[in-house]
C-alpha cells in the first residue's frame, strides 16, 4: 500500500531522475522533425491531388500550387465503372480475406493451445517448417496458376496470404494464457465437443486477440498488390483491387481512359485528362482509410506485436 505522501515523494523522485531540460528540448525537436518527415509526403500527395493541371504543368508538384481544384476527385467519383469498381473489389477482398484469415489462424491457434492434444507436435512442425524454408516465387506461382488454377479468380487475391505462422502463434499464446482450462473442462463434462467449445466459448471471450489479428489481416489485404500483380491478367481489369490500379496507371493511363464517356463530356474544348492530379487522388483514396483509422487501432497492433515477440 502506498500512501498519498509516498506517491508524492515518488513523483518528486521521478522529476529528479529525468534528462536535463535542454536535452529534453533537443529530443522533442528531434521527434517533431521525424514525425514531420513521416507525415509530410502524404500531405504533399494530397496537395498535388488538389492542384490544377495548369499549375502542375507550369510549376510541377508543389506544396503551394498556383490553383486549387477538386476536379480530380470529381473525375474519380464519376469513374464508377473503373475506380469505384476497384474500390469495391478492395473492400470485398479485405472483408472476405479477414474473415477467412481469422477463421483459419484462430482454429489452428486454438488447436495448438490445447496441451492435451496428441498431434500437437506434428501440427506445430507443419506450421514451423515454412518459417524456415519456402519453395520461392517460381514454384508458388506455378502451383497456384498451373495446379490450383487460381489465375483471374478472387481466390488468388485471398487464399495465398490468409494464413501466417506468426498470427497462429500469437493466437495460440493468447488462448493459452487467457482461456482457462476449467471452462473447457466444464463444457466437456456437460457433453460439449471441441467445435462447440471453440465457436461458442473460446471465440467470444477472445475478441481482443481476434481484433488484433483482424486488423493485421485487414491492413494486409487492403494494402496487397502482389497477388493481383501475379495472378490477375489485364484481360480481367474489373477484378483489379485499388492498389493494383495504382500500379497499372503507373504503366499507362488506359485503365482510367476506359471511362471515356465522362472523359468526353467533361472535357470539351480540348482540355486534357488531369492525369497527374487523378493519379495522386487515387493514391489518397487508397491511403486515407488506413491513415484515418490506424491511430485508433494502434494499441491493438502494439499488443499483437508484444504477444508475438514473447517466446511461446
Amino acid at each position, binding site marked *: 500500500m502506498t500512501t498519498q505522501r509516498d506517491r508524492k515523494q515518488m513523483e518528486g523522485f521521478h522529476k529528479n531522475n529525468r534528462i536535463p531540460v535542454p536535452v529534453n528540448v533537443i529530443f522533442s525537436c528531434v521527434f517533431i522533425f521525424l514525425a514531420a518527415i513521416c507525415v509530410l509526403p502524404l500531405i*504533399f500527395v494530397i496537395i498535388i491531388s488538389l492542384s490544377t493541371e495548369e499549375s502542375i504543368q507550369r510549376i510541377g508538384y508543389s506544396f503551394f500550387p498556383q490553383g486549387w481544384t477538386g476536379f480530380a476527385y470529381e473525375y474519380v467519383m464519376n469513374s464508377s465503372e473503373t475506380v469505384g469498381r476497384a474500390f469495391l473489389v478492395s473492400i470485398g477482398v479485405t472483408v472476405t480475406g479477414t474473415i477467412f484469415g481469422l477463421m483459419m489462424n484462430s482454429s489452428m491457434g486454438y488447436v495448438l493451445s490445447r*496441451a492435451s492434444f496428441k498431434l500437437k507436435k506434428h501440427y506445430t512442425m507443419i506450421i514451423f517448417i515454412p518459417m524456415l524454408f519456402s519453395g520461392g516465387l517460381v514454384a508458388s506461382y506455378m502451383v497456384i496458376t498451373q495446379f490450383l488454377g487460381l489465375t483471374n479468380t478472387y481466390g488468388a487475391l485471398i487464399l495465398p496470404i490468409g494464413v501466417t505462422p506468426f498470427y497462429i502463434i500469437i493466437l495460440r499464446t493468447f488462448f493459452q494464457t487467457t482461456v482457462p482450462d476449467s471452462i473447457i473442462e466444464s463444457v466437456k463434462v456437460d457433453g460439449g465437443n471441441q467445435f462447440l467449445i471453440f465457436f461458442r466459448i473460446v471465440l467470444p471471450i477472445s475478441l481482443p486477440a481476434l481484433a488484433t489479428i483482424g486488423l493485421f489481416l485487414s491492413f494486409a489485404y487492403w494494402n496487397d498488390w502482389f497477388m493481383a500483380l501475379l495472378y490477375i491478367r489485364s484481360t480481367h481489369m474489373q477484378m483489379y483491387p485499388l*492498389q493494383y490500379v495504382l500500379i497499372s496507371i503507373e504503366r499507362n493511363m488506359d485503365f482510367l481512359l476506359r471511362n471515356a464517356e465522362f472523359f468526353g463530356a467533361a472535357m470539351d474544348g480540348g482540355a486534357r485528362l488531369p492525369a497527374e492530379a487523378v493519379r495522386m487522388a487515387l493514391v489518397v483514396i487508397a491511403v486515407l482509410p488506413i491513415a484515418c483509422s490506424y491511430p485508433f487501432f494502434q494499441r491493438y497492433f502494439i499488443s499483437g506485436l508484444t504477444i508475438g515477440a514473447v517466446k511461446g
Partner: protein
Amino acid sequence: MVRQASAGPDNITHKKRKRRFGSDNWELTILGLPVVAWFFLFSYLPMFGIIIAFKRYRPVGANFFDSLWKSDWVGFENFLFLFRSPDAAIIFRNTILYNAVFITLGISVAVTLAIMISMLYSQVLAKVTQTMIFLPHFLSWVVVGYFVFSFLSTDRGLVNNLLISMGRQPVQWYIDTAPWPYFLIFINLWKGMGYSMVVYLASIAGIDISLYEAAAIDGAKKWQQVKHITLPMLKPIITIMFILAVGRIFMSDFGLFYFVPRNSGPLFNVTQTVDVYVYNALFRLNNIGMAAASGFTQSIAGFITIVSANYIVRKLTPENSLF
C-alpha cells in the same frame, strides 16, 4: 518461438487416463485440418515444386506437377547459366549488402529512438510523434513509390524544382545510380522505424522502474542508467530481432526494390535484388530456369542462415534463441 512446454502435469495425467486417440483428439485434429490443408497447398507443394530448378521446364502435362514430372532433368545447368552471368554476383551482393545495412541501422537507430522517446517529459508529445512515425508502416510500397516519385520525378518533382530555383541543373533521378543506395536505405528506415520503435518501446515499458530508482539513488546519471539498465534489459529482444533479420538476409522486400525505383533499367546495378531478379526473369524474360535457380539458391541460403544464426545464439545465450 515454437518451443513447447510439453510435459506439463496435466499432460501426464491425460496420457495415463486415455491411451487411445479419443474423440477430443479427433475433434481437435479436424478443427486444425483446414490450416493443414492450406499449408500443404500453399507451402509444401511449392517446396516439392522447387526441383523445377533442376529441370528444363516445359508445360507439356495436364498440370504443373505432371509437366514437372515429364520435363527433362538438366542437373545444374540452370545454376551454371545463372552463375556464369554477371547478374548473379550483382543480385546476391545487393541483397546481402542492403540487408546488412538495414539490420545494423535498423536496430541501432530504432533502439536509440525508442530510448530517447521514452525519456521525453511530455507523454502527449511522445504519443503523438510516435503515432505519426508509425504511419509509413501502414502504407503499401506502391503508395510509397508514388510518394518518392512526387519528390524525384524528373520534370515535376519537388527536388528538381528546388534545384532549378537555386539555379542548379535538374537531375534524372531514375537514371542516376549514385544516390540510390542512400535513397533505398533511407526509405526502408523511414518505413520500418515506427514498427521497430514500438517493439523496443514495449520492452522498455516492461523494465522494472525500481531498477532505475536504485541506480539514481546510487548517483547514476541518466546515460549511465541507459548503458547499465536499459540496454542490458533490451538485449533479449534485440537478439531476437537480429536473428529474425539475419535469417532473412537473402530475402528482400520486392516492393521496395521494384516499385520505389520504378523498375528502371539503368538502375538495375544498384536496385536489383534476388526477388526482383526472379520476378523479372520469370515475367519479363520468360526464363523459368534462371528464375528457379536463383530462387532455389535463395531458399537454401536463407534456410542455412536462419538455422545457423539461431544455433550461434543458442550457444552464446540459450535463453535468447528462437527455437
